[in-house]
């Protein structure tokens, strides 16, 4: 992936920038030593690294505002960073940028059970939002796989999803309000504990804008009471087609499980070898989870089993108790670790219409042979969000490039069958250059015009999301204007 070359004029201002930042931030909030800025050289897309010019770790919205005002005046690009778990390179620095990390802003500001909302600083991790209300029986629904580490700031930037969004929705459906600092340092408040916007749905466009419109420092999130219980059933099939048809039939029957996870044979084999969850060796495995009281769970699982049996499953295993439930989830939850043990891997995130599943899996299998790289598929089947994991060897010259080319072909296929490039990880730099496969030039231009309104000088995370050629004139004009 190409990144814009560092601007020498900006680099030359480093000493002056440090001096100005030192006036608004305590010394421990500024990181300028090369050895230390290396900690911010990449996010979870580790194939691409570049230490930033500086990193700052403010503790308050006012400090964020002061930093942005200075960078804005000096024309220095700023890359916001949550916990740095982006798989798309959303927090990848350029050598001439300031990394603005919100990790130190992790307080719960208000918990309101009567109105079912929580107000947090956005450096707080996803799981610890639920953790703050768990004892009282509540939880925050979006649950990305990285939830132990990822920050709400990044969840908002990428509009993160998770395994349970079939029922509960993704971040944008659970976000009610934000405090956001604009690139010029001004602070705006949008929404709150009430529902729906008064004017244009600015919150809707901010969520998922990959840190390009503003830096969100506080958020009001919807919390829900936990269900009385939850239990999975595992259903094994001897073909992807049949498993796909079963998913469709479950949905059509009016059962709305909280999660429907799908694993194909290469994934099952790898997970089994790694986690020994006791999965049967088959072509496709579904894990379907339902929620409610004991009786409600039993009723729904009975309906699902009836539908599944019509598709002649190889095996159908209901969890009899919590231990068995945990074992059913064990393999799925260790999928990424299992792959990591075998090899380096790249995790894709395209979404397809559920009905196209068999075709897409077949085509991925053919491409896997053509590229000579193995691929395992694990994904959220209820909503068509695929996660093909392509295995490669980072130490082997040319393998990464081959892997990326393979990934690009899969994503193009997703678009071709009516889907999209990314369902929950974001575009970042990873899918930036594929955007013109999904959108026409005018559709991209419409999005750039939105950024023009929020960040007219194009200093916030400028080299992401859109192909560099489509943003070049704006980026250079912005820096020249400062």
């Amino acid at each position, binding site marked *: 992936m190409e990144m814009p070359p560092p601007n020498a004029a900006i680099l030359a201002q480093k000493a002056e920038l440090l001096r100005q930042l030192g006036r608004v931030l305590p010394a421990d909030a500024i990181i300028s030593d090369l050895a230390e800025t290396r900690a911010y050289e990449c996010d979870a897309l580790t194939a691409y690294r570049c230490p930033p010019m500086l990193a700052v770790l403010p503790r308050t919205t006012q400090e964020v505002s002061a930093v942005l005002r200075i960078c804005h005046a000096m024309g220095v690009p700023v890359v916001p960073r949550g916990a740095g778990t982006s798989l798309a390179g959303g927090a990848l620095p350029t050598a001439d940028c300031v990394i603005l990390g919100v990790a130190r802003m992790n307080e719960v500001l208000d918990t309101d059970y009567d109105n079912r909302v929580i107000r947090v600083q956005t450096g707080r991790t996803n799981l610890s939002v639920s953790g703050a209300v768990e004892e009282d029986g509540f939880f925050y629904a979006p649950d990305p796989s990285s939830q132990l580490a990822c920050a709400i700031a990044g969840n908002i930037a990428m509009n993160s999803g998770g395994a349970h969004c079939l029922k509960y929705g993704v971040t944008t459906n659970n976000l009610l309000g934000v405090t956001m600092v604009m690139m010029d340092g001004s602070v705006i408040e949008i929404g709150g504990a009430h529902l729906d916007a008064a004017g244009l749905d600015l919150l809707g466009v901010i969520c998922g804008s990959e840190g390009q419109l503003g830096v969100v420092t506080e958020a009001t999130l919807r919390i829900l009471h936990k269900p009385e219980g939850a239990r999975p059933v595992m259903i094994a099939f001897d073909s992807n087609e049949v498993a796909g048809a079963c998913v469709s039939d479950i949905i059509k029957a009016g059962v709305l499980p909280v999660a429907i996870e799908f694993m194909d044979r290469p994934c099952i084999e790898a997970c089994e070898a790694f986690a020994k969850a006791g999965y049967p060796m088959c072509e496709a495995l579904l894990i379907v989870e339902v929620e409610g009281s004991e009786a409600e769970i039993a009723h729904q699982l009975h309906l699902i089993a009836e539908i599944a049996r019509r598709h002649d499953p190889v095996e159908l295993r209901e969890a009899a108790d919590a231990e068995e439930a945990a074992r059913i989830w064990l393999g799925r939850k260790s999928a990424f670790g299992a792959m990591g043990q075998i090899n380096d891997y790249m995790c894709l995130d395209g979404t397809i219409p559920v009905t196209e599943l068999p075709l897409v899996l077949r085509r991925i299998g053919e491409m896997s042979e053509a590229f000579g790289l193995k691929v395992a598929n694990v994904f959220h089947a209820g909503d068509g969000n695929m996660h093909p994991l392509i295995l490669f060897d980072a130490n082997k010259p040319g393998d990464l490039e081959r892997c990326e080319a393979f990934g690009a072909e899969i994503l193009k296929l997703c678009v071709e069958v009516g889907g999209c490039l990314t369902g929950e990880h974001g575009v970042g730099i990873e899918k930036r250059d594929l955007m013109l496969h999904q*959108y026409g030039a005018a559709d991209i231009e419409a999005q750039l015009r939105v950024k023009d309104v929020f960040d007219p000088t194009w200093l916030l995370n400028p080299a992401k999301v859109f192909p560099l050629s489509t943003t070049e004139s704006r980026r250079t004009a912005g820096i020249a204007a400062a």
Partner: protein
Amino acid sequence: MTHPQSEAELADFIAGAKGPLQIQGGNTRGVVLDGDVVSTRGLSGVTLYEPGALTLVVQAGTPVAEVEALLASENQQLAFEPMDHRLLMHTQGEPTMGGVFAANISGPRRIQAGAARDFLLGVRFVDGQGQVLRNGGRVMKNVTGYDLVKLMAGAHGTLGVLSEVSLKVLPTPETTATVTVRDLDLAKGIAALSAALGSPFDVTGASYDPQVRTAYVRLQGFEASVRYRAEALTKILGQLGSVEVLTDCADLWRGIRDVASLAGQPGDVWRISVKPTDAVALIPALGATQVLCDWGGGLIWALMPAGRDLRASMTVPGHATLVRAAEGTVLPRHHPEPAPLARLAAGLRAQFDPRGILNPGLMG
């Protein structure tokens, strides 16, 4: 009035327009603006319906009734339960899908399932220069680029005219029951709704009608499950007032959805969105003739004496829309935005409609 019969005709017309345009779907919300009327009713029909994928793509002018009938044939529904404004507004016409999304119209189930905007997966629209644009798609999870889909939902046609929408639909629940709690004053009524919504029992409607001092809590799903949850809620809510479980309640919720209790009465009708528990202090301060609470108290419908600016009594955060203005009432329809947000909104309108011809002045 112009009736483009295709997206291309719509685009040509807007590109060649010389002055302000009023964008109209079914015209059931009684909005009257200056400018030539452009109707989307000619853009009608279902492009794609995949019940197994819970997705539907329709032309913007397609009547809501047509879509609901199609979905019903597969036992599915529009889960955000869009209101039909005809009763309250005393209008004719046919609500359209484009109108529902352009105004982000959601009913009682918004509290559980989400708003219209949460179900909108993709849009095609014509901007103020006559350019056809698209955003989003037809899959349920999509974070590819900026979410202009949300921006278009609730923009009331001021950023562009919707030509096609794709949306997520959901299965129709097998059974519905309503737990009613009577003899509750306002504070207890809202407390009852908070208790129900804060329970694990997946409430799909939570309304309080001060006129009859009754709270209504809706449960939906499989029959045995609904019965179980109704019993559980009866125990919790029985501490607050006398409880009865209704099983025949479709008309009740249609009435709440369409604000039937305020229809046909003279005065202005306002729609207020606040934090649910703020309703307790706010409602007595409004000086309203009659009110109805939905969304656990977070949505207040208020019938006010004509011409009185309800916003002056808004002592809590939130916003109020003047949905039905009596003859002679001259007040802005939409809540004025704080200056920094108004600047952003104006900036976006200048980008998408630089000539300012799409429903000018409607939103501010």
